[in-house]
């Protein structure tokens, strides 16, 4: 039985900033690959996508998320769910990532 309190969702999200998409060279949270995150019962459930179907780095990014999640005190397992819908697009990036890649917001 773990003696650590469960981490908050924000804490986990911050930790996942350490995982990068190696090709884009930027963290997967700000790129917008994380579609969902739940923290409950010493378990983290991450729903994520990739920038393109069959991304060569897909397995390594998922493994990276798992490894980083397991390093958080109180977390015993990380459940990763890879989805393709809705498809990722650069518009899913946070403003800071868009600024880094010089990506303009789509017009409404």
């Amino acid at each position, binding site marked *: 039985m773990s003696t650590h309190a469960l981490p908050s969702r924000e804490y986990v999200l911050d930790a996942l900033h350490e995982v990068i998409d190696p090709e884009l060279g930027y963290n997967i*949270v700000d790129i917008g690959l994380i579609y969902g995150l739940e923290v409950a019962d010493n378990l983290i459930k991450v729903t994520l996508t990739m920038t393109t179907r069959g991304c060569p780095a897909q397995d390594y990014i998922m*493994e990276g998320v798992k490894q*980083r999640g397991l390093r958080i005190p109180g977390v015993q397992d990380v459940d990763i769910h890879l989805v393709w819908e809705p498809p990722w697009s650069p518009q899913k990036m946070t403003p800071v990532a868009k600024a880094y*890649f010089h990506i303009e917001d789509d017009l409404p």
Partner: protein
Amino acid sequence: MPAVSDRLSRWTPLIFACALVNFLLAQTLIVAGMTWPEMALTAGSTLVTVHLITLGWLTLLMFGALFQFVPVITTKPLLNQWLSLAVLILVEFGLAGMIVGFLALNHGASGLVYCLPFGGTLVLAGVLLAMGNIVTPLLHSRPLALPGRFVLAGLAFLLATILLGLTFALALSVPAFTPLVAPLLAGGVGYHVLAGLGGWFTLTAIGVSYKLLPMFMLAPEERGWWGECVLQLGISGFGLSVSAGLLSVWWPQAVLLNAVQYLGWLAIVVAVMAYLIDVLRLYRTRKRARIELHNRATFGAFLSLAAALVIAVILVVSHRLAAYAPALVLLVLFGWLSGLGLTQLYKIVPFLTWIMRYSHQLGRGAVPRVQDLVDEARTSPWFVIYFLGVALATLGAFINVAYVCRTGVTVSAGATLGLAFEYWRAWRGYYAGRARPVAPIPPPCLSRGGPAP
């Protein structure tokens, strides 16, 4: 999850290294004046050089890239990783046999001439294994995306090219077989070249670029009816011109065959033009404002393809294609196909390096980015020099001044050597140690920002 996933083609780096050695060897032969333009096109050493480039360099390069990227395109694994190594061994030994056979042809060593069909058979075996390895995931992917269909079409042309080549090899080495295919031997070599350079290399390169360009530039992947037109026109164009051309070898007076051949040429011209326009659209609609060196340098390859198209049209219309075909082939081989290959290697090599050397660190600490494994400022002059060398060599070939052509190839060979050194540095992680940490550990619940622009 496996430490090395089935998305990684383990033998691809070795295949790339062997391909590069073959390319440098071929360039060395040209620089040494041992091949065309100093020697005849039919000289054994010229044929050795041509096959070192087409089989030893470009085909192996394409196989290495396809072994890595077909699982990416299809999300299905290769049939078997070990088949990739078997393909490399068969193609390299087959090529060695062919080289001995070509040289024996010129030196009258009749016993060794049999090495030509023997080597060709080994190459055919390697190609069939490669096709099995690549086609299996393609056929298991439903619906098959546009890049995958280009690859399937390209492989069909590859088989046709190899079978034609094997027929020539038998005709040259087995006297009893020669009369049966004498017309083919006399007039069919051009279609062997067209099937290889156009149907195999160009269609496959278009397909792979339709996956890689959007992926690396964050451009829309869906090419819609435009991409479909490029595919259909490309297949029918190369298919019609090659098949009608081969038949016209036996029936040279058949007007219908000539008409079909011209129809094929027209389809090829429209397909390549449509592709180049689509490439421009891809660059224009990209979301990544600042693109990386490999995507900037690839423009040299696209310019070469556009130049080759314009020159080919002029030569066909003015009925001077036969006279200048070698110069045109040089532009396609060095500018378009090798240019595309060298520029894309500059991304693929560090990507494979990252996966093999650094991927296991992801989530356990700071890791370098793929971009951290290369030094673009140091490498970009090599690409400029390479394409300038190709332009000079092409000019020399068209004005028929051998030393200008050789000087151009010398320049591009030097640049190839420089690029090979940079690939090696990327592979060894030479620049990785200089990289700043990319994924700093942020204090929990504080900054949500990434690295500074």
